[in-house]
């Protein structure tokens, strides 16, 4: 491992820790009633968010879904403004109007997320079209869950992306469940990437808890997209370690299943990889420490931030007002 790689790996780790610490804080603040809303945390899925976004360029576009805090942070969003948004403050990315499921951070290419399952998949095609037309080699990436694989617009989007060879990457975070139901009860298709195959789209299924595997698959997909080779479908097999939403009693999963996946925790796994590569315990600890400090600071910022004024509710309904 050369120095550059070592630095890169530590930075990947730190980013995963930032997301983990952020989500843990959100959970804590929610439990204390300091933030409200319908919150879907991505604890356990950090490998997909970081592995993907770190294989992208800063000027690439990313679209998310309802479980997208991690995507925004991985793409470079400021945790403080993100948390302020989730807490409904005027200092949030969307002035408190969007909330947890509707994050927009255009400065880092997070175009939008959605509360509608599969809702942003068609939007990403539009962004990809723009990327292709502007000719700067940018691409669009969209994250969605396995549940979105059964939604009609998902299929319409695969067809059009392939037909028009759009520079877009479909990242399916297959965490095995849609709300409280396992994938097998929703479809006979066991490998969701096969849907891309139908439309002649290159596709791959990777271990989503292996950040380097995700990163590798996305790098290849991004190269293909940038060079005019069209879309790629990357299915990442992963697991959410918390409930579907904060407050979900989670009775639909066996505890043994959850603990099995805890053993495959993407953050701990990556620590293991680094250990093998000779990175010292002090260095991991520092990465975690810095991440947690950054999140603590975000909490201080968000909770001290002012609320939007009531008149804001009427503003920005139409552009140009």
């Amino acid at each position, binding site marked *: 491992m050369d120095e550059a790689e070592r630095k890169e790996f530590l930075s990947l780790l730190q980013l995963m820790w930032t997301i983990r610490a952020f989500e843990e804080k959100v959970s804590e603040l929610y439990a204390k009633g300091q933030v409200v809303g319908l919150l879907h945390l991505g604890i356990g899925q950090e490998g997909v968010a970081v592995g993907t976004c770190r294989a992208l360029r800063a000027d690439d576009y990313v679209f998310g879904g309802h479980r997208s805090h991690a995507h925004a942070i991985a793409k470079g969003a400021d945790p403080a403004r993100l948390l302020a948004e989730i807490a409904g403050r005027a200092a949030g990315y969307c002035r408190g109007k969007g909330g947890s499921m509707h994050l927009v951070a255009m400065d880092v290419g997070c175009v939008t997320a959605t509360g509608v399952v599969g809702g942003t998949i068609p939007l990403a095609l539009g962004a990809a079209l723009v990327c292709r037309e502007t000719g700067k080699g940018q691409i669009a990436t969209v994250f969605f869950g396995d549940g979105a694989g059964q*939604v*009609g617009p*998902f299929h319409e989007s695969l*067809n059009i992306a*392939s037909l028009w060879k759009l520079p877009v990457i479909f990242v399916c975070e297959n965490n095995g469940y849609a709300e409280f139901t396992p994938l097998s009860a929703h479809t*006979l298709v066991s490998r969701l990437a096969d849907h891309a195959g139908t439309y002649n789209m290159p596709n791959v299924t990777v271990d989503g808890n292996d950040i380097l595997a995700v990163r590798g698959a996305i790098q290849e997909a991004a190269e293909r997209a940038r060079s005019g080779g069209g879309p790629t479908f990357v299915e990442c097999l992963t697991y959410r370690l918390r409930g579907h939403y904060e407050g979900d009693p989670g009775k639909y999963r066996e505890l043994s299943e959850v603990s099995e996946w805890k053993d495959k925790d993407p953050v701990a796994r990556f620590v293991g990889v680094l250990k093998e590569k000779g990175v010292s315990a002090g260095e991991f600890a520092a990465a975690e420490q810095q991440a947690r400090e950054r999140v603590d600071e975000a909490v201080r910022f968000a909770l001290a931030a002012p609320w939007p004024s009531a008149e804001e509710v009427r503003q920005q309904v139409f552009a140009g007002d």
Partner: protein
Amino acid sequence: MLPKLPREKLLDLYKTMLVMRRFEEALIRVTKSGISVGHFHVYIGQECTGAPALSLLGSRDTVFTTHRNHGHLLARGADPGKLMAEIFGKATGYNKGKGGTLHTTAGELGFLTTSAIVGGVIPLATGAAFAAKERKTRGASMCLFGDGALEEGVVHESFNLAALWSLPVVYLCENNSFGAPGQKAGEYSSSTIAARSLLSLATPYGIPAVSVDGTDAGAVHQAVQKALARARKGQGPVFIEAKTFRWPGSRPVWPELLTGETDLKRAWDLKAIPKQYADWHRKKDGVLRFTRELLKSRRATPEEILEMDREAQARNEQAVRFALDSPEPKPEAALEDVFA
């Protein structure tokens, strides 16, 4: 090839095809004479798919179809007069003039509805299959649609559910896009679907899928028979692609009789084939193909064929007269049947 059927049955099938063909020719002719019925879509060229496929349905089965439905209704035995009257918006039509060409239904023939929304009937037919299964009717649901419908997302939602719940539904896709403008030859199966084969849209769900030549009545008959048997046994859905050619006169809105009214003599007399659209008459027109097959297998003579044709034409002329003479619905009827 001819369907494996006794002569009587084959001739019945042939008569049905002739009624289908002559009906739409009459319709086009009437509309050219100044009678306005709104825009409509014709089934000309697809008779060898619809006639054998729908002849296999029984009283427990249901059918759902699209904007291109005249042929399907007639294939199932609809009365040409009531159908023509419906297309003309008359009170005597199948739906009292409220459905029109795009929405004709005939409940007694198992036609539950006809949707002009591309792909719209696919969930409905899947639902009818669900009801058939739950009510243990042992009937199947037949869903007819064009290749364009496969571009709609609901198709996948439906395939997924039909497979997951093993529903008795036959998805019969009439792919009439061969030779349609805009198609990239040899690349994809349609200019707007990025799949090399339409079958690959169904196979990931574990739905058995076959492709047949839609102008080959025997092949269609065999495939549909097998699919229906499977569905009725509760073994789940089947997807069939029937490939046909686009009739030259087919226009998105106003069809034109570019190939003239069908001259069945062209089936046996090559000299009767005009230069223009010769390919159509020689190879692509399924009705002529079926005629040739009947002659070749000696199931009918040219005289018998012409006689059957005269009958079909007469029935349709009568249908036109019936429709023209029928009363318009009363204006108040527009407000009736909004709620059941």
